[in-house]
């Protein structure tokens, strides 16, 4: 299943609902393009909903890191929502779980953006 990303606005926060696989090639490119497009529109409060992401490889992890640093460098913030166990475990072993702000509840996550 290839990756899909669609965005919606909730109280000034852009929630990107991701599904499928974030892997080398198409999946990583779709994520990169989605974040770039949001930033170009001035939408800098981004919540990546990864609840339907079934798989991430090292390239996908790299793309998450790239999105995080790109948004931060532009004065915004990017947080993660609804990690599956596989993605959670991957972020744990790569020590990225403490780098990202990871949320489990959408309403709480939206409120956490300043």
């Amino acid at each position, binding site marked *: 299943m290839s990756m899909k990303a669609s965005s919606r606005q909730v109280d000034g926060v852009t929630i990107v609902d991701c599904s499928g696989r974030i892997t*080398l090639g198409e999946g990583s490119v779709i994520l990169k393009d989605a974040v770039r497009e949001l930033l170009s529109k001035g939408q800098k409060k981004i919540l990546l909903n990864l609840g339907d992401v079934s798989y991430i*490889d*090292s*390239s996908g992890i*790299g793309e998450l*890191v790239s999105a995080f640093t790109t948004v931060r460098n532009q004065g915004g913030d990017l947080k993660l929502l609804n990690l599956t166990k*596989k993605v959670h475990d991957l972020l744990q*072993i790569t020590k990225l779980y403490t*780098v990202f702000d990871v949320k489990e509840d959408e309403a709480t996550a939206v409120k956490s953006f300043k």
Partner: protein
Amino acid sequence: MTNHRVSYTLDSTLETVDSAERTATRIASETGFDDDEVMRIAMAVREAAVNAVLHGNAYDPGKKVILAFERIGQDLVITIQDQGKGMDLNKIPDPLAPENLLKTSGRGIFLIRSFMDEVQIHPSQAGTEIKLIKHVHGPSGGGKEASQ
């Protein structure tokens, strides 16, 4: 898969990466590993295939990737070989080092080592061979056997 070897000669393309992962998923499952272990083995193979296609062969259409699966005793042994210049083992970064945490690449070998029981990397001027070993556990020392 009872003490026999299957090997595949693959092009240096992204399709090879996906194909290697699918094949690893099938063989690991047939060997009797549970779903979590199958995922780990398949991801290790995927990352090794990425290294072979991108960093080893650099997408060169004249170079191939050799992927082999073999059951040796109580081990599933997977070999991925490229025809590149040979990996420089001294240049593999530690992705957990604070200065590398926000790097966008360099986690492939780390994930491979995390997911397999043993990893042997043999670089040479003819390419890099990486050997991934997973011990097979189970009531009969192997669980289900692979279909032939």
